[in-house]
C-alpha cells in the first residue's frame, strides 16, 4: 500500500473544490437567469404549497451561487461542503420522490425543468450525476484543506511561520 502523498491529496481536494464550485455557480446562474422557469421547475416536483414554492424558487438559485462563491474562494470549506452535501441530498430526494410517484418531470437541475413527456424523464442519470457531486462534497467535508484557498491563506497567518505552506492542521481543528 502506497499512501498518497500530501501534495497529491491537496491537488485532488483542490480539483474537487473548484469542480463543485463550478457546478453550483453554473446551476445557480442558469436558474437565476430565468426565474419563471425556475418556479415552474420547483412546482413540478409537486411537494410544496404554492406560496412556499415561490420562496424556494427565489432562494434556491441564490443559495447555489453563494455556495459556489465560497467554494471558489475556499472559505470555510468544510462548512460549505457540509451545506452543499445537505442541499444535494435534498435535491436527490426530490428527484427520487417524483420518480417513485411516477411524475414525469425534468429535474431542472441546470435551468429548464418542468413537466416532460413520460418517456423523456432521465431520473437515473440525474440521480447518478448528483451523487457524483455529493461525493466531491464528501471529500471536502472529510479533508477540507486545499491549495489556493482563503482558508489556507488565513491559516498561514496564524503565527507559526516555520510551518510548511500546505500544512493546514490549524483549520482542520478550527473548522
Amino acid at each position, binding site marked *: 500500500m502506497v499512501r498518497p502523498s500530501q501534495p497529491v491529496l491537496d491537488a485532488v481536494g483542490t480539483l474537487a473544490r473548484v469542480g463543485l464550485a463550478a457546478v453550483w455557480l453554473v446551476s445557480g446562474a442558469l436558474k*437565476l437567469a*430565468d*426565474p*419563471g*422557469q*425556475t*418556479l*415552474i421547475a420547483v*412546482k413540478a416536483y409537486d411537494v410544496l404549497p*404554492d406560496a412556499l414554492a*415561490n420562496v424556494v424558487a*427565489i432562494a434556491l*438559485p*441564490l443559495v447555489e*451561487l*453563494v455556495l459556489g*462563491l*465560497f467554494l471558489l*474562494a475556499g*472559505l470555510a470549506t468544510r462548512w460549505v461542503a457540509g451545506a452543499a452535501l445537505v442541499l444535494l441530498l435534498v435535491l436527490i430526494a426530490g428527484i427520487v420522490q417524483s420518480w417513485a410517484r411516477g411524475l414525469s418531470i425534468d429535474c431542472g437541475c441546470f435551468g429548464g425543468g418542468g413537466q416532460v*413527456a*413520460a*418517456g*423523456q424523464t432521465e431520473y437515473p442519470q440525474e440521480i447518478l450525476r448528483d451523487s457524483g457531486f455529493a461525493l466531491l462534497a464528501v471529500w471536502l467535508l472529510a479533508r477540507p484543506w486545499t491549495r489556493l484557498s*482563503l482558508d489556507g491563506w*488565513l491559516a*498561514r*497567518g*496564524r*503565527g*507559526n*511561520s516555520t510551518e510548511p505552506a500546505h500544512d493546514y492542521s490549524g483549520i482542520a481543528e478550527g473548522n
Partner: protein
Amino acid sequence: MAQARGASGDKRKWIIGIGAVVVVAALVIGGVIWTISDKNKTEGQIINPGQTTSSLAGDVTQKRDGVVVTVGKAGAKASIDVYADFLCPICGQFEKTYKTDVEQAINDGKLQVRYHMVPLLNDRSDPPGYSLDSANAALAAADAGKFLQFHDALFANQPEEGKRGYDKAQLIKLGQDVGITDPAFSQTVNAGTYDQQINAAFQQIENDPKLAQDFGNGQSGFGTPTVTANGKIVSWQDPGWLAKVTG
C-alpha cells in the same frame, strides 16, 4: 515576531469574514430584488395594441358562439379550428409564424377560423389565473367585434410562463386601446362571466380522443396549440399546411 504575525492574522481573518458576509448579503438582497422585479415586469405595463390587424377587410365578421369565436367572411370554403392558450409559448410561436398568412386567407374570403381559448396553463402564471382571465377577456372582446385585434395584441406581448401575466385592469385597458367602447366589456372581464363555460369546454376538449396527439413513447394527449381542419389534426409544423387546407 511570531506574536505580531498572529495578531495581524486574526485581524485579517476578521476583515475577510466581515467582507464575505457583506458580499454575500449584497448578493442575496440584489438577487431577490432582481428576481422579483423580473418576474413582475408586466406590472403596470400598457399592452401595446399594435397595428397588427388593422388591415382586416370590412366584411370579415367576428362572431362569438359560446366560448368559440369564428372569424372570417360568409361563404369561406375552408375552415380550421385553433386551440390555444394565451400563455403557451409554442402558441405564441405559431401565431408569430402564421398570423399573417392566416389573416390574409381570412381577408381573401378563403378561410374561416374558429378560435378556442384553452386555459391549459392556468396555474403556470404567477399569480395563477392569467390563462383564464385572458380567455374570458378575449370572448368579451369578441362581443364587441374586436376579437382578433385583442388576440393578436396579447400574443404579440405574450408574458412568460412562470412569471406575472396581465391583470384584469391591464386587459380592460387593452380592450379600450383596440377600440372597444361598450361598458359591458369591462364588466365581463371583471366578473369572469365566461370562466365556467371556458373551463367546461376545456374539460371536453381534453377528453376528446379526436384532439389527442401522439407525443411518442406510447404517450398521447391534448396539447396546445392544436389546429384541426375537417375534424382532423393538422401538422402545422409543415410550412405548407395552410395552402393544403385552403386548397
